C-alpha cells in the first residue's frame, strides 16, 4: 500500500508534462487532466492516510527510495520520499485543498483573461507543477530533495503571479516574489552546506539524530544552522523581514492566491521549521527569535490589513498575520498545535480567497471594497461561505476551525521559555486586530448600501441572479463545512474536547509542549473570545454603524500619516528599494560598459595615439630626418659621457 507513495507527487507531475507536451488539448481535456491529476493524488493521499491511521507502519514512518541522485565524496542524496504523521498531514492538505482549488479554477479561469480563457492550458500546467513541487518538498527524505521542491515552488509562484504576463506590473510582482524568496533560499542553501560539512549527511532524520548527539544545546554551530534554516523559512513564509513579496503576489489570478496562501508555498517555511524542530530545540536563542518574529509579524500584518482597500490585499496581510501565529507556535515549541493551525488555516484561507474570487469576478475585476457593499443578498452562497471562513479566521462560533489559534496562544502563555506572557499579549492583541479587519472586510463587502460597482454589476431592474457554476460552488461548500467542523479534530480540553490531532502527531513530536492547567486554559480561552467579540463589535461600530467616525479619524493629520504608513506595509518596500534595489541598479547602470574593459580600451587608444605620433615622423622631409639624426646623436653622446 505504501509503495504507492511515489504516485502522489508523480501524478501532478504527469499532468504537467501532458499539458506541456500536448499543444492541441481541448478545453475540456485540459480541465480533466489539470484537476484530475491532483484529484487522483488526493485520493492516493487519503488512501494512505486511512491506512496509516488503521495500521500504522513500524516506527510510524515509511520511506521509499526511488534512486540515488548522486554520489560524490560522501555526498549521497537520494531521491527518496518519507512519510510520517507530519508529512502525511501536509500531503493530505496540499492535495485535497489543491484539488478543490483546481476544480474551482476549471470554471473560474475559463472566463478570466484577455481574451477569456487565454492560457488555460498554461495555467493548469503551472498549477500542476506547483502542487507537484510542494509535494516533493513535503515528502522529501533529504534536505537536498526538499530544496528541489522548495525552489520548484518558488519558480511556480513566479510563473503564476506573473501569469498575465503582458502587464509589466504583474511581471514586477512575480520577479519580486521570486527574488525576495530566493534571498531566503540562499540562506537555506548555506544552511545545507553547514549541516553537510559538520554532520556529514543531508538525510533529514539522520542529520537530526547526529545533531542531537554531537551538538550541545546553544552551541554556535547549532545556532548558526538553525538561523540559516530560519532565513529560508522566513523568506518562503513571508515573515519579517522578507514579507514584502506576499502582498504584491496578489497580481496573480485568484485561484493562484488561494493555492499560494493555503496549500503551497507560504506554509513551506512552517513545515521546514517543524521538520527540523530538533535543530531548533538545540538552539534556544533561534527558537525564541522564531517566536518573536512571529509575534512581530502578526501585529505588523494585522495593522496593515486594517487599512487596505483591496479585498485580496486584506486577505494577503491576513495570511502573513496567521503565519505569524504559526511561527509564534513553533517558537514556543507548540509543534502539534502549529501544524493544526496550518491545517485549519489552509481550509479557511482557501475558502476566503475562492469566495473573494467570485466577488471580484462578478464585479468585473473590482478589487476595491469601498465600491462593493450590499452583496449579501446578491451573492448568498458566496456570502454565507465567506462568513463561515471569516468566523473560522476569527475563531467565532459556529465555526470551530479557528480554535487552533487558541491552542497556540495557550501554549505561549504556559511555555517555560522566556517572554511567554509577552508573546501571549502580542497574540491576544492580534486576535482583536484579526476580528477587527476581518469584519471590516465582511461589512464593507457584503453589508451596507450597495456600492457603485455593485449597482453596476447588479442593475436594480434585473431580478435574475447569475448562477454560480457547480465547479465553483462545490469547493466553497466543502471548505465551508471544513470551517464549521474542522476544529473538532482538536477541540480544547477546556471545552471538554479530545486531542486527536496531537495524539496523531505525537510520533513526530514526542516531547509535547507544557500542558496548561485546565483552569488557566479556561481563563485564557475566555480572554481570547472576549478579544474577538470586542474586535467584531468595534468593526460593526466603526465600519457599519457610524463609518463617518473612522473616516474622520483617518482624515486627521496623525491619522492620515498612520493610515499611509500601514497601507504601505510599514514602508518596507521603500526601505528595501533605497537600501538594495536602487544601489544595485545604479551600480549596474554606471558600469554598463564595464570599467575593466574601458581600461583595455584605453590601452588600445594609447597605442593608436602612439602609432599616429610615430607615423607623423615618417613624412618624407629630409630636414626632419636630419634633425632626428642630430638629436639622436647628441643623446647618444650625452649618454656616453655621463653614464
Amino acid at each position, binding site marked *: 500500500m505504501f509503495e504507492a507513495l511515489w504516485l502522489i507527487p508523480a501524478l501532478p507531475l504527469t499532468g504537467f508534462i501532458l499539458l*506541456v507536451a500536448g499543444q492541441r488539448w481541448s478545453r475540456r481535456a485540459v480541465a480533466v487532466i489539470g484537476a484530475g491529476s491532483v484529484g487522483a493524488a488526493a485520493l492516493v493521499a487519503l488512501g494512505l492516510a486511512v491506512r496509516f491511521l488503521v495500521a500504522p507502519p513500524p516506527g510510524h514512518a515509511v520511506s521509499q527510495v526511488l*534512486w*540515488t*541522485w*548522486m*554520489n*560524490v*565524496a560522501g*555526498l549521497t542524496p537520494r*531521491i527518496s520520499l518519507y512519510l510520517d504523521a507530519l508529512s502525511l498531514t501536509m500531503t493530505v492538505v496540499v492535495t485535497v485543498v489543491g484539488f478543490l482549488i483546481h476544480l474551482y479554477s476549471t470554471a473560474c479561469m475559463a472566463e478570466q483573461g484577455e481574451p477569456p480563457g487565454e492560457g488555460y492550458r498554461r495555467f493548469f500546467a503551472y498549477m500542476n507543477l506547483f502542487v507537484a513541487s510542494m509535494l516533493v518538498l513535503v515528502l522529501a527524505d533529504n534536505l*537536498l530533495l526538499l*530544496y*528541489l521542491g*522548495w*525552489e*520548484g515552488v518558488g*519558480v511556480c509562484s*513566479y510563473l503564476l503571479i*506573473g501569469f498575465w*504576463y*503582458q*502587464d*509589466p506590473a504583474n*511581471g514586477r510582482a*512575480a*520577479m519580486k516574489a*521570486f*527574488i525576495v524568496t*530566493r*534571498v531566503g*533560499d*540562499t540562506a537555506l*542553501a*548555506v544552511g*545545507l*552546506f*553547514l549541516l*553537510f*560539512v559538520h554532520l556529514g549527511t543531508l538525510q533529514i532524520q539522520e542529520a537530526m539524530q547526529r545533531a542531537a548527539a554531537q551538538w550541545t544545546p546553544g552551541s554556535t554551530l547549532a545556532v548558526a544552522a538553525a538561523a540559516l534554516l530560519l532565513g529560508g523559512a522566513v523568506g518562503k513564509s513571508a515573515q519579517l523581514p522578507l514579507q514584502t513579496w506576499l502582498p504584491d503576489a496578489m497580481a496573480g489570478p485568484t485561484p493562484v492566491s488561494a493555492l499560494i496562501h493555503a496549500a503551497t508555498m507560504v506554509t513551506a517555511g512552517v513545515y521546514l521549521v517543524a521538520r527540523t524542530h530538533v535543530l531548533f530545540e538545540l538552539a534556544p536563542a533561534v527558537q525564541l527569535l522564531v517566536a518573536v518574529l512571529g509575534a512581530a509579524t502578526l501585529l505588523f500584518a494585522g495593522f496593515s490589513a486594517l487599512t487596505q482597500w483591496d479585498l485580496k490585499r486584506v486577505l494577503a496581510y491576513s495570511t502573513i498575520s496567521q503565519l505569524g501565529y504559526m511561527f509564534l507556535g513553533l517558537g514556543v515549541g507548540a509543534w502539534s498545535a502549529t501544524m493544526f493551525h496550518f491545517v485549519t488555516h489552509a481550509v479557511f484561507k482557501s475558502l476566503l480567497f475562492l469566495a473573494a474570487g467570485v466577488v471580484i469576478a462578478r464585479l468585473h475585476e473590482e478589487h476595491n471594497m469601498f465600491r462593493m457593499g450590499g452583496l449579501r443578498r446578491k451573492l448568498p452562497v458566496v456570502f454565507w461561505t465567506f462568513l463561515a471562513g471569516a468566523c473560522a479566521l476569527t475563531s467565532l462560533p459556529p465555526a470551530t476551525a479557528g480554535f487552533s489559534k487558541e491552542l497556540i496562544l495557550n501554549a505561549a502563555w504556559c511555555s517555560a521559555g522566556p517572554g511567554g506572557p509577552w508573546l501571549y499579549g502580542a497574540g491576544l492583541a492580534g486576535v482583536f486586530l484579526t476580528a477587527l479587519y476581518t469584519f471590516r472586510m465582511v461589512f464593507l463587502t457584503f453589508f451596507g448600501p450597495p456600492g457603485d460597482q455593485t449597482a453596476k454589476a447588479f442593475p436594480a431592474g434585473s431580478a435574475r441572479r447569475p448562477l454560480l457554476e457547480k465547479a465553483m460552488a462545490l469547493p466553497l461548500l466543502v471548505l465551508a463545512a471544513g470551517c464549521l467542523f474542522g476544529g473538532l479534530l482538536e477541540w480544547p480540553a477546556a471545552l471538554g474536547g479530545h486531542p486527536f490531532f496531537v495524539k496523531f502527531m505525537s510520533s513526530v513530536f514526542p516531547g509535547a509542549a507544557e500542558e496548561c492547567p485546565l483552569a488557566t486554559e479556561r481563563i485564557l480561552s475566555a480572554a481570547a473570545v472576549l478579544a474577538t467579540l470586542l474586535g467584531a463589535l468595534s468593526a460593526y461600530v466603526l465600519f457599519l454603524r457610524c463609518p463617518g467616525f473612522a473616516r474622520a479619524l483617518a482624515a486627521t493629520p496623525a491619522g492620515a500619516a498612520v493610515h499611509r504608513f500601514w497601507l504601505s506595509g510599514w514602508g518596507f518596500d521603500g526601505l528595501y528599494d533605497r537600501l538594495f534595489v536602487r544601489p*544595485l541598479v545604479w*551600480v*549596474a*547602470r554606471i*558600469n*554598463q560598459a*564595464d570599467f*575593466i*574593459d574601458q581600461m*583595455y580600451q584605453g590601452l588600445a587608444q594609447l597605442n593608436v595615439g602612439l602609432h599616429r605620433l610615430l607615423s607623423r615622423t615618417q613624412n618624407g622631409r629630409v630636414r626632419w630626418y636630419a634633425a632626428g639624426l642630430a638629436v639622436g646623436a647628441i643623446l647618444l653622446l650625452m649618454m656616453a659621457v655621463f653614464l
Partner: protein
Amino acid sequence: MGIQAHFAVDGLSLLLVLLTGFLGLMAVAASWTVIRARVGFYYFNLLLVLAGITGVFLALDLFLFYFLWELMLIPMYFLIDLWGHERRHAAAIKFFIFTQLSGLLMLLSILGLYFAHGRSTGVYTFDYPQLLGTTLSPAAARWLLLGFAAAFLVKLPAVPFHTWLPDAHTEAPTAGSIILAGLLLKTGAYGLLRFAVPLFPGAAAQFAPAAMLLGVLGILYGAVLACAQTDFKRLVAYTSVSHLGFVLLGIFAGNLLAQQGAVLQMICHGLSTGALFLLVGALDERIHTRDLRRMGGLWAVVPRMGAVALFFALASLGLPGLGNFVAEFLVLLGAFQVSAVAGVVAATGLIAATVYALWMIQQSFHGTAREAWKLADLNAREMAALLAMAAALLWLGLYPQPALDAAAPALERLERPGDFEQKLTKVTKQPQAPGCCLIPSSFTSLPSCKILPLIAALPVPAAALSLAEKISSRCEGLTIWKSGKRERRGRFSFHDFVSSKLTLLCFDCGYAALNSFAAIPPGGAR
C-alpha cells in the same frame, strides 16, 4: 626534441569530447539557413575549430597541446571576422590579441618546464606523463604556473581578463557563439585541471586562495554586468562570465566535491548557454535585432520559443532538477568546506543570477509588446536541437552519476592538500612498504624529491605537525635542503617548515625515505 603526437583519453576528456561533438552538431544546426556567403569556407573553419578543440582535450604532449591550442584560434578569428555582426572586426582582433598573448606566455612556461625537466633528469621531452612531478624550486614552479594560468584564465575567462568575451560572443555568428561559450571557454578550465594543477601542485595550492577570489569575483561581477545589458546576446555572454566563475572556484577549492561540480558546470554551462545563444540567434534571424528594449510580449507571438527560453533561463539561474544546479551546489559545497566566506559570498551569486535571468525573460518574452513583431515560431529543426539540449540538462540534473563517474578517476588522481597527511601516516605506519626507497645519509646531490609540492600544499600545519614529529623521533639524521643547498644535519625542527622558511626538505631516516610518495596511490593502499 622529444615531441610526440601523444593523444590519450580518460573520463574527463571523453566527457568534453562528447560535449564537443554534440555542440558541434548544434552549431551546424544553427548555421543551416543563416550562412549564405562563402559557405564552404565557413564550414571549413567551423570544422577546423572543432578539430582543434577536440585535439586540445586529447593531447598529452605539451608541444602538441600548444599547437592545437593555437589551431583553435585562427579559424575562430575568421568565423567572427567574416560572418559576424556589425562590430565584428574589432571584436575579432580583440579576441585574437587576448588569446594569442596569453598563449605565448603559456609557450614560455612549456619551454621552461621542458628545460627544467631536461636539466634535472637528462631527458628532454614534452611528454606530459614524464613531466609530471618534475623537481622544481618553488619560485620556478610559481612562475611556470603563472604562464599556464595566464592562458587558461584568459580563455576561461576570469575577471579581469574577461573583456574579450562579451565582444566576441556578441559579434560572432550564432554557431560561433555556441562554440565559444560552449567549448572554447571549457578548454581553459580543462587546461587548469589537466595541466596547471597536476604539473605544479604546490604552486597551485599557493595560488588557490587568489584563484578562488577571482572565481567569486567573476560570479558576482559577471552577474551584475549581465543585469545591466540591453543587448540580448551580450547579456547571455556576461552570464558566461558568472558561470565560469563557479568553474574557477570549484577547480581551486581543491576538494573532489568542488572539482566534480566544476566539471559538471563545464558541461551544463555548455548546454544551457549554447541553447540560449541558439535562441537569440533564432530570434535575431527573425526580427533582425538583439535589442531587449525593442522586444517584450513575444510570448504571445511565439509561445514555443518563449517556453524554451524560460526553461533555459531557469537552468541558467540554477533551478534544482536541472544540471546547472547540481554543478553549482557541488562547487559551493566544496568551496564552503575550504572557506566558509568564499562559499557564502559565492552563494549570493545565486540571487544575482535570479535577477538577470528573470529580467531577461521579462524584457523579451513577458511584458507588453513594444513593437508589433510578426515572426514564425521555432521550426522542427530548431525545436529538435533545443529539446535535445533540454533533455541533457534534465538528465544531468536528476541523475548526474554517469557524468560524475566518468570524471572521477581523473579528478581523484590530482594531489590534494589532505593527501600529504594521509601519505605521511601511511609511511610512518609501514616503513618498509613497497614503494619506499632508501636514501643513504651520504646523499650529496639533489634527489628528485616529490615531497616538495606536498609540503607547499599543506593547509593545516598543526595537524601535520604531530605526524611529522612522529617521523622525526624515529629518524636518526635528517638532511635539510634549502634552495638546493644543504642547510644542516641532525634533529630537525618542524617549526621550520611550519613557518615555511624551508623550501626543500628531505627525510633520510636511514631505513625509509619519503621521496617516492607519488608511487603510493591516493587514499593509501586499497
